[in-house]
């Protein structure tokens, strides 16, 4: 019984990373061979653990339940007479468990070895602050940026919009993407090239900036305009120019999902 109590705490503390981790623990605890798993014993204990588990974490519980089904399935298949094909040994249903378990065990020991290395800012330190990630190397001048940069740029743009708000506030009727798209289209047909900042300068609020952004993306998608960005951080000033005045765009009504 003390063992059972111990189990409860372990599961609730989330000590097991997942069903494979729990299975490895059971195999270890029972001192059985991973290549010859006693299915009845292990399945029984696994299901006991499951009963004790905190089921409120549905994501994790789901993974554990799938494994429970697999275990039960393998156990029942072991009970059936196996088809012997001449010259070939009968297939062991447990193999579908052994493979993933061995691979997971391998990755666990790899992780241990990795963790035992002298880790920067845990075991070893360099001169200075070292909070930043080394140098950024540019590969043939292509811009290296990530989704995070884009989100960061969006925040900067959005906060700038807020700062530039005038004292007098009027309730302004919100445009739709379709309307904004038609406006930008007409504007570009006339002046041929522009940049993002210019197009959003007259926007009254963040929603309109977003609408302009979506409209520009839609126009770029259809080939009506081309977008070009000079430097890595130049998110607010990407240039755009008219590429194909004939490009078919969705009808404004089709885009009006606000």
């Amino acid at each position, binding site marked *: 019984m003390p063992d059972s109590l111990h189990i409860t705490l372990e599961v609730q503390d989330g000590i097991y*990373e*997942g*069903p*494979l*981790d729990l299975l*490895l*623990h059971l*195999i*270890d605890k029972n*001192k*059985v*061979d*991973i290549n010859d798993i006693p299915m009845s014993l292990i399945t029984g204990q696994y299901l006991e653990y499951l009963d004790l588990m905190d089921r409120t974490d549905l*994501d*994790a519980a789901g*993974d554990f339940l799938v*494994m429970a089904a697999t275990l039960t399935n393998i156990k029942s298949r072991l009970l059936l007479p196996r088809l012997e094909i001449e010259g070939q040994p009968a297939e062991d249903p447990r193999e579908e468990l052994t493979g*993933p378990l*061995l*691979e*997971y*065990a*391998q*990755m*666990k*020991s*790899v*992780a*241990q*070895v*990795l*963790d035992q*290395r*002298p*880790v*920067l*800012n*845990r*075991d*070893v*330190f*360099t*001169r*200075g602050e*070292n909070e*930043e*990630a*080394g*140098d950024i190397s540019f590969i043939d001048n292509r811009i290296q940026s*990530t989704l*995070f940069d884009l989100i960061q740029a969006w925040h900067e743009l959005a906060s700038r919009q807020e700062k530039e708000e005038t004292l007098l506030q009027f309730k302004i009727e919100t445009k739709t993407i379709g309307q904004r798209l038609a406006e930008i289209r007409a504007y570009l047909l006339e002046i041929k090239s522009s940049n993002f900042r210019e197009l959003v300068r007259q926007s009254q609020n963040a929603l309109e900036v977003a609408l302009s952004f979506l409209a520009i993306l839609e126009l770029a998608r259809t080939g009506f305009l081309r977008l070009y960005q000079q430097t890595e951080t130049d998110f607010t000033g990407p240039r755009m120019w008219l590429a194909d005045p004939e490009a078919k765009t969705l009808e404004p009504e089709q885009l009006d999902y606000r």
Partner: protein
Amino acid sequence: MLPLKTIVEGLLFVADGPLSLEKLAEAAADNISTESIEQEVESLINEYDDLNRAFSLSLVAGGYQFRTKPGLAPYVLRLKKKTAHTLSRSATETLAVIAYRQPILRAEVEKIRGVDSGGVIRTLLEKDLIKITRRDDNLPGRPMLYGTTDRFLETYGLSDLKALPTVEEIEKLEPKDTRTLF
């Protein structure tokens, strides 16, 4: 004119991150071969080792860098009033899978670990230990493939990815019976 070794030493002393032989050569003199720079660096590495100082010169992420010796960690952390940068078990495990199987899909990581790994992958991306290397054009939806970054090499003090111990080497270190691993 200072001796080349002194110049190299000075450059390494002021650098923010690991300095490659190419960068050292570029800064040290015109038309100097990386081989002669390497010679000086090697000799510096040996000299610092012989002096038994608190730091040594190490090869990480394709460059050379001064790093403190591991035993100093508690004192450095107290001085900086910081806690050690550590990764959770699940993050280390996910990082290991990505490091050894890269380029790898999120679905493959989850298959090996047997659990949802979206949150951990995001954390590793934020810490700049992994990156999206490319998309798999042969699969529907062109899912993203993940790999490790230079920051990963710096963090684990690896000169390059080849310096990772192979799975076979790791298994040789461990007793044959997988049970005793845990």
